């Protein structure tokens, strides 16, 4: 009987292993390691809330303290997933309330969270510390009040980009006077104009560990100084409206307050900016590593001035008002830049309203050696520019390009942009995320399938000629986890030929493509470990011939079987070819 280490020793060793992947690997070594590991796993990440059921998670990992769940598919961000599709967190909370009384952290993304869920959280977890609701919806400030009132040790409340029914700003007053534990508070998504500012001020003042504070629009510029003076230890700050009539005393007060924040490294907010107030930031600019000006409608000269004060900038989010000239300045001033996101100021306008072209991106790719992550909206692109970018920056890991008009060709040659994107995947060997746009044929997918070996997430729109395109991707991209496609002529053949691949991925989304209902049924029938969901808001898919294409298709692997919380417009293709509804 040769024992290895006693369990406690193994457990102790395992406690140093934090990453999910490593933990999963550990659990595969042998049965006893599986057992030990599952009892000491404290953090679980579930990338698709329907891939597994709460009971299964609880059964395997009885001592979880921290859970992260994702719900709707990514394209829900762009309103492609109809409301009511799913992603409800309540069943999870209900099960965990009983099983994990010591749960401390809940992080949710794209889930439907109700006030009932929030109240249940507040009631059930005595040591609750962290609530992050990223891009969630379905709750109101009443639910937040419950959290504020009951969670005595709350450290983080982060509502980033969620849709909150903002009934009243008074929920902030529900934080008891005894609450001093806050480390992070992000209420930037709250839209109401009333916020209980005095409650906020008091709360900020009594939380000495507050590191991150993101206010909402309702907080006016003149109030910022007061807040900052109460929390000079802040590392990350999000302003409210950064606009007011220029008044020297307000300005100097503000500048003084900012300069007293010696740790401040990250700024965001800036709804509605008056450029005259930007110099108030100059004292902290040299330390800034992250700047989100993507809601600020300030023009290039003001942006240039600001950015030139920030040599340490690693992350910049900005509107296309920055223009090529601003990006050129960025390229020369900010050598530490790792991430750049340029959003369109007028995405629905027919004509360009700013002078932002592919040149800006080329300049940044040349001037910023550490650039890894790009999200860029523009109106024209060329293969030459893309090849240059690829050659300049083989260290890119995320490249998302959105040429605003679908199917826009290379503006110089009028050819498809296959070669340009091909260069990106060929040179950027660690590319893990890619979004395509512009005029693209099946060739681009051939490149992607050939070179995109580390690609984990691919977004495709208005591209390709035939099933061959999809086949290249499914057969070639070994690391692919998430594939989302819209408005492409991809049909049954590639999908059915690569059905097995789908079990190795988290999910596949296809909308406005050419996959027939018959193929969906077949897939559902043959692949029991996949949930094949057909989404159609206009009529049931079986009211038409089987050869008709479905409107939207969402396929994901699951060990939980088909779900039963679907709305009327979602049908699951069950293996017994019963269409569950």
């Amino acid at each position, binding site marked *: 009987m040769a024992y290895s280490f006693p369990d406690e020793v193994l457990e102790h060793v395992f406690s140093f292993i934090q990453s999910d992947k490593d933990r999963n690997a550990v659990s595969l070594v042998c049965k006893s390691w599986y057992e030990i590991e599952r009892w000491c796993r404290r953090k679980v990440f579930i990338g698709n809330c329907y891939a597994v059921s709460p009971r299964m998670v609880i059964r395997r990992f009885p001592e979880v303290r921290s859970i992260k769940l994702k719900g709707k598919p990514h394209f829900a961000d762009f309103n492609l997933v109809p409301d*009511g599709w799913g992603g409800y967190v309540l069943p999870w909370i209900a099960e965990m309330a009983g099983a994990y009384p010591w749960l401390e952290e809940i992080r949710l993304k794209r889930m439907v969270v109700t006030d009932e869920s929030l109240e249940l959280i507040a009631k059930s977890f005595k040591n609750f510390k962290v609530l992050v609701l990223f891009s969630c919806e379905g709750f109101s400030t009443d639910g937040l009040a419950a959290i504020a009132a009951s969670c005595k040790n709350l450290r983080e409340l982060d509502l980033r980009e969620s849709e909150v029914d903002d009934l009243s700003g008074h929920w902030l007053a529900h934080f008891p006077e005894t609450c001093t534990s806050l480390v992070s508070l992000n209420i930037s998504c709250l839209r109401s104009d009333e916020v209980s500012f005095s409650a906020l001020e008091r709360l900020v003042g009594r939380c000495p560990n507050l590191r991150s504070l993101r206010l909402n629009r309702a907080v006016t510029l003149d109030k910022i100084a007061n807040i900052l003076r109460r929390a000079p230890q802040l590392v990350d700050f999000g302003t409210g409206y950064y606009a007011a009539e220029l008044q020297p005393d307000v300005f100097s007060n503000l500048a003084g307050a900012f300069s007293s924040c010696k740790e401040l490294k990250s700024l965001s907010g800036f709804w509605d900016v008056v450029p005259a107030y930007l110099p108030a930031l100059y004292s902290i600019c040299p330390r800034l590593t992250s700047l989100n000006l993507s809601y600020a409608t300030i023009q290039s000269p003001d942006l240039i001035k600001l950015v030139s004060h920030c040599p340490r900038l690693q992350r910049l989010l900005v509107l296309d008002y920055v223009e090529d000239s601003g990006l050129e300045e960025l390229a020369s001033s900010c050598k530490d830049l790792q991430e750049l996101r340029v959003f369109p*100021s007028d*995405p629905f306008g*027919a004509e360009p309203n700013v002078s932002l072209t592919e040149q800006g991106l080329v300049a940044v790719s040349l001037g910023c050696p550490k650039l890894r992550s790009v999200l860029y909206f523009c109106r024209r692109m060329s293969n030459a520019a893309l090849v240059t970018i690829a050659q300049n920056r083989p260290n890119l890991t995320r490249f998302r390009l959105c040429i605003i008009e679908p199917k826009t060709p290379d503006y110089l040659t009028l050819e498809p942009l296959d070669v340009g994107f091909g260069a990106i995947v060929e040179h950027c060997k660690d590319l893990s995320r890619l979004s395509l746009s512009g005029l693209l044929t099946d060739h681009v997918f051939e490149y992607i399938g050939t070179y995109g070996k580390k690609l984990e997430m691919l977004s495709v*729109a208005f591209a390709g000629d035939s099933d061959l395109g999809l086949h290249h991707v499914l057969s070639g991209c070994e690391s692919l986890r998430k594939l989302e496609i819209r408005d492409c002529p991809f049909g049954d053949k590639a999908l059915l030929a690569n059905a097995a691949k789908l079990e190795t991925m988290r999910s596949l989304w296809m909308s406005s493509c050419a996959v027939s209902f018959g193929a969906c049924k077949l897939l559902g029938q043959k692949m029991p470990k996949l949930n094949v969901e057909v989404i159609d808001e206009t*009529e049931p898919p079986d009211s038409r011939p089987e050869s008709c294409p479905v409107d939207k298709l969402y396929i994901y692997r699951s060990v939980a079987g088909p779900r039963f919380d679907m*709305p009327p417009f979602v049908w699951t293709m069950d293996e017994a070819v019963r269409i*569950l*509804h």
Partner: protein
Amino acid sequence: MSTPLEHDYIGLAETSSMERSSEKISSSSSSSIPSNIEDKTTNNPSLNLKETELRLGLPGSQSPERKLSLFGKDLETNDKSNGFVGSPLKNLVSGAKRGFSDAIDGSNGKWVFAINGKSDVELGKGAVLASPRGGLDSKTNPQQVRTSVPVMKEVVGVPQSPKPVQDKKNLVPPVNEHTSAPAAKAQVVGWPPIRSFRKNSMASNLAKNSDEAAGCLYVKVSMDGAPYLRKVDLKTYNNYREFSSALEKMFSCFTIGQCGSNGDGLSESRLMDLLHGSEYVLTYEDKDGDWMLVGDVPWEMFTDSCRRLRIMKGSEAIGLGIPY
């Protein structure tokens, strides 16, 4: 005025564009129909638009042709009939609580809306989603318009010229369905890929800074009794009619028993309650936080001030500023 006069407040048959009504009601003219609406009408011959007309009858009079319907949709049709084309209307008959003059102010294209305190089962009810047009639109027969106008005048004292449709053009937001979308080109759903949070933020920025139409304007629509709420982009509609028709589509599934499997699916008895009992009223919360009936103001004013919508039970809507 002893016979009930039919006034088509849906604007189904505007003199400039006789769209959907051309299929259903004997039409004298027709013009191009927006393709999506056209498809639906041709696919679904059972839709009877007549029943959605708001009839100006005397109290106690009835329209025998009306069938039982909800959201203006025949319940006999199966679920295949998707989006209803045209809006269900409250029947103004039987003690309409709403002042008629309020309901049809043709001069600025007001929404016709009413809450009927008494339920008239035979007349069919639907959500009180009425036409944006001033109600003086002709049905298909221009003749009728002209004859109706004087009557209207008597009843409501609304000064109207015989061809109110044309006159209103400069006062009323474009109702003609085949007017192209405002300056921006026709938008593809979800493209460019910008999150709603950002779109809404930009929309309010643009609104503050200029009068440009922002790209989109998502507001939430909740319906009493429905298991979840929906979001609509007000900018994709040009008028109340398009809007109400879209809402129809979205919410019909809650009332026509299409949702059966969910816990919140309607049971048969509940459905019957809806049919025979309460009516629905479409309301919205404006910039000031007040709840108003949809249809009181011109379409553009509505889209500017609307923060969110609620389809509420008629019984709950009492006190929303209805004069009687």
